[in-house]
């Protein structure tokens, strides 16, 4: 052993270990057999393709594939409400991306060798799902050797060629940049550039916000009632792949492939649920959280009437704030069925407050000032509304009564009320300013007509 090697071992702190034999432990273990796929040869390189079909009757908990099918030969109406729109920075209602009607939706999910991104992070498993008639099809491209990456990406590009829209979960920050880097590294055009994209993480947060970072498995549990068994934890995935790379032993990967498949099927179901909600309108919402989220999505798409309906629905007291959280439910069963009722009550009021606020602001934008004032007034009737919304309501009502309703005394009452609430110094100052002006107007004469109304904010 040369001295360089010894010094290197000192620097790297490497201990030569026999843990990873360089050859497969068991000669007869073929990855294709273990993983249920077929080897595909392309350009002299070999990679593995795993195909699965999910019949209409396939279920995740309460939900079956048949429940999710898009209209024949097309895509769900209202899908465009869910697309990401990176260029929309102006704050104006955005133009929904136009989706070509006849082509397919591609549900994409990657398993990677790390979370950091960069040239050395590989997408070793590219999972793609799409509806084909009444069935859901799923194809996984597995990078069984690094040399096959180009061939593999070519196959992915081929599959993605007639895609109308790609659907991911957190793909805007993770999956798409990562696979685009892989295409760039192979000096290939990425098929996803400029392709309409639905990143379900963001609408899901609006519609079904969960604790614990709104993870897909949690949504799968609450929305579909599906409980995964023996799911491989995410942090284990790269090391299972590296183990395969070194040993050729694919047994640890079967669970990774299944994990990827479950994610894609759930993603499709989640997307279907969201578009169905948006298609059916506010009445379909089962929780006030859902209704509020729908309102926001409608408003972003410029569908103001639908948005107002949804906000109004969310503000009603007859809906639960959110679906009973599966983990809370489980906990409650374990501990004698006592769910924190008080906690839910607060959540209800918070969402109602937010819904009323959204309703009021949209009304004001539509110049329906009285409706706006009515909503703000209802905010003040809530018992446990977040203070920042209460303050916003009192300020808005002070403005409304000063400039619209022209009732200076009432305006003054609201201004005084907002002064009681905690606020930043500059806000406090603005309120003081308003009060001084109101006092001046009240003091000099109650009848001095306002000059043309100044802009409201």
């Amino acid at each position: 052993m040369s001295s360089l090697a010894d010094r290197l071992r000192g620097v790297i702190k490497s201990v030569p270990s026999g843990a990873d034999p360089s050859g497969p432990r068991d000669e007869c273990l073929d990855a294709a057999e273990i993983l249920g796929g077929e080897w595909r040869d392309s350009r002299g390189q070999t990679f593995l393709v795993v195909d699965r079909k999910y019949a209409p009757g396939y279920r995740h908990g309460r939900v079956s594939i048949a429940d999710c099918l898009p209209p024949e030969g097309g895509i769900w109406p209202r899908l465009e409400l869910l697309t990401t729109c990176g260029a929309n920075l102006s704050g104006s209602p955005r133009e929904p991306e136009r989706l070509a009607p006849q082509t397919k939706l591609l549900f994409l999910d990657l398993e990677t060798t790390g979370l950091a991104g960069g040239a050395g992070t590989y997408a070793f498993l590219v999972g793609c799902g799409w509806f084909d008639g009444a069935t859901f099809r799923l194809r996984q491209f597995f990078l069984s050797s690094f040399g096959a990456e180009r061939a593999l990406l070519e196959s992915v590009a081929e599959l993605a060629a007639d895609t109308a829209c790609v659907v991911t979960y957190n793909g805007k920050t993770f999956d798409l940049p990562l696979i685009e880097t892989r295409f760039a590294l192979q000096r290939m055009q990425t098929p996803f550039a400029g392709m309409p994209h639905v990143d379900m993480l963001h609408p899901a947060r609006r519609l079904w916000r969960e604790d614990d970072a709104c993870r897909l498995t949690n949504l799968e549990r609450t929305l579909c009632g599906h409980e995964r068994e023996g799911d491989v934890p995410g942090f284990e995935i790269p090391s299972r792949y590296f183990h395969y790379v070194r040993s050729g032993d694919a047994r640890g990967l079967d669970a990774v492939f299944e994990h990827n498949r479950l994610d894609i099927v759930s993603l499709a179901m989640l997307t279907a649920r969201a578009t169905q909600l948006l298609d059916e309108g506010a009445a379909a919402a089962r929780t006030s959280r859902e209704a509020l989220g729908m309102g926001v999505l409608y408003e972003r798409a410029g569908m103001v009437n639908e948005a107002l309906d949804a906000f109004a629905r969310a503000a009603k007291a007859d809906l639960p704030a959110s679906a009973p959280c599966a983990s809370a439910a489980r906990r409650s069963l374990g501990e004698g069925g006592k769910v924190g009722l008080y906690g839910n009550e607060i959540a209800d009021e918070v969402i109602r407050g937010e819904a009323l606020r959204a309703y009021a602001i949209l009304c004001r934008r539509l110049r329906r000032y009285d409706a706006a004032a009515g909503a703000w007034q209802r905010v003040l009737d809530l018992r446990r509304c977040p203070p920042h919304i209460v303050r916003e309501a009192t300020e808005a009502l002070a403005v409304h009564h000063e400039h619209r309703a022209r009732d200076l005394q009432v305006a003054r009452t609201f201004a005084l009320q907002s002064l009681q609430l905690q606020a930043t110094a500059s806000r406090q100052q603005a309120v003081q300013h308003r009060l001084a002006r109101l006092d001046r107007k009240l003091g000099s004469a109650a009848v001095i007509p306002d000059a043309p109304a100044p802009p409201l904010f």
Partner: protein
Amino acid sequence: MLPARPLDDPRGPLSVVERGRTDSAHDQALQSIVDRLTGGLPDRDDTPDGWVTAVRRLAPRAAEYAPFPEGVDDRLQQVLAARGIEQLYTHQAAAIEHALAQRSVVITTPTASGKTLCYNAPVLSAILGDPSARALYLFPTKALAQDQLAELHELSDQLSRRAELEIGVFTYDGDTPQDARRAIRGRAHIVLSNPDMLHSGILPHHPRWAKLFENLRYVVIDELHAYRGVFGSHLTNVLRRMRRICRHYGSNPTFICSSATIANPKELAEALVEQPFELVSDSGAPRGEKFFLFVNPPVVNRQLGIRRSYLAETRRIASEFLKRQLQLIVFAQSRLTTEILTTYLKDDFGGPPGTQDQIRGYRGGYLPQRRREIEKGLREGSVRAVVSTNALELGIDIGALDVCVMAGYPGTIASTWQRAGRAGRRSGRSAAVLVASSAPLDQFVVRNPSYFFDAPPEHALINPDNLHILVDHVKCAAFELPFTTTEQYGKHDVQEVLGILAESGFVHRKNEESQWQWTNESYPADAVSLRSISSDNFVVVDTTNGADVIGETSFTSGPPTLHEKAIYIIEGSLYQVEKLDFDGRKAYVRQIDCDYYTDAITYTKVTVLDTFDGGSFDSGLGIRDSGSGNASVPNPESLIPNPGKSHGEVHVSSRVVGFKKIKFYTNENVGSGELDLPEQQMHTTAYWLTVPTSVMAALPYAPDDRRDGVVGLSFAMRQVAQLLLMCDRQDIGISIGSGEQGDDTDLTRTGQPFDVAQGGPATLADEPRIFIYDNYPGGIGFSEPLFGMHDSLLARTRELIAGCECQHGCPTCVGPVGNTGPLAKNVALRILDLIAGAEPASPAVEVA
């Protein structure tokens, strides 16, 4: 004595235009102070100004011009002409010609000689000729990139209008907002960045930068001399990685580098970039008249060899200039002395409380906003004096100052000139004053002015094949692009490196494949900091009113400066550290009012791990290429019964064990304290001198005095080693001991303890060793050259000690007498004589 005005005054045409009416008043004020200092009018008995050891007048020089070389785009020439540049200085023309012909070039010219045009002209010409062309500029700091951005923008805007081509110029660094990054990647023709960002933000994401790397025509490296030692060794590896990626994308950029004056700019450029370079070193730029003075503070106690404090002397000289309304910069050696001098000058010139500060401190660790404010104040003149560490040595734009006063020799000729260049960037009269401290190197320089003025400046040394550095970058490179089984990287066998990395699972190669793949989840660039051992730092939290972060400091300097009860000084305000959260890397401080500062005492222990060469008095032919890998063949320990020189691999552990309280102004020791801080450890390389048993036995002195002699000898050797290696003080460390595992005879303390009896082991091994180690894990390439220079190291050390005027030792030779004992000087000389005498007795041993 100097004439009141120089006889020749051929100021270039530029100076006439630039200099306003008031400048002549400035010139006169400056002249009169120089006259006073040099003996014109010594008006105070206690400060005999005769202690000026050198005055050099650097004559003004007229500009030398040359026409634009062929190939500079016409539109660029027109834009430059519109800005008054109708012809080039000769050095600019030469550099541009090389660059346009795709010959990599390094330019060494003084501050303010128009070096930026040397790279902007070929780069912009290339872009005008081919809009797909790209260039990457690397600056050692973000601030310098920002500085250049403003200038480049002006030029590129005018060009863009004229050429109807949008020339994108952007900085890309840690401060660039995430959402702007994609746009920059797409639109930038010229990317202004720094090595750290290239290392961790660009190279690992090269697929996103494909457009840049496919079309990379030029790489500009500014302030090349900044990349010495560790930083330079890292940069070489970053550039190796960049050139791998360029090859992948089919580009082969030309390099344009600029450097301050060092002895080996061409060699440094070639070592950093690993390809041939052309050198352009003759400046054609005009230069104003400049006086350069060396001041050695007078001896106030001949017996102890004590000189008047150089800080007090610096304060006095700075005051002279400040009184005459001249704007000045004072360079101090450390953050501590910067703060002390700032305090002194504020006391003298601070103005009434509440008024704007005219005297400011400046150093690393100040937050960016404070720094920008000070830079602006200097440019606008509202700041009259700034006291700075080397942080202002590089080309941050602070405008033209009148005077530069250096408190202590900056350590290298190159940085002394660089700092002096901060005064008189335009063509007026200016002055630079070097005030020597009692450190041996300072004393050597002021007593031998020709060493500074006439000798070639330093060589910059790097060791890119240091295994620690190399391995880190091989990991990064493997992450970026798989290594092939035939690929070379650096001087070591990279295939062997990859093989060992594979053992730990970082990379993997299948039997039949010709590539090493990265098989690790990590992002390796995140774990590698180019500037220090670790990217860790300590932040300083002021808890006086709430919790404000007021500063930061590097991991290694954390324990000695931020231990509990330490006084932390920032711009003259004193804070006491109340709690050091070592694991959380936070120091909680509270503002206090006190009349002392603190100085930490550090113990260092060295253990020999492997001897590469040595054990004989064989002459110094042993300089080998440390990167070749062959040099590391160790000698069996049994070959070293002979006394003398060795070099090899060592383990260094150091610990801050206590601190002293030192009173401001008087420097009295007014107290001390003990500390218990975690030990810091590293493997590095060292040179060592073994004092043989026979020599120790032959010393006619008591054991304590013998010990003092060895300590004193080590003190002097360190200074000479620094001079010979031309390195920074912190680049090397020193330790005394046997070098054996478990041995407890270590005598090393730094921080100049005033009390020998303060503790610590005091006995000496039978065969003590003096270690001079590279203060960086894995070593940075000093030990082997020092091994080769062993003879002159000992000879120079003897000269230093014997030539010193003191009686029993002083900080200039063997250390202050209170520190090393009354006989240290004599014993140290005796040891050197005995070793020299022993030399012929030991036959040379051939090293296998």
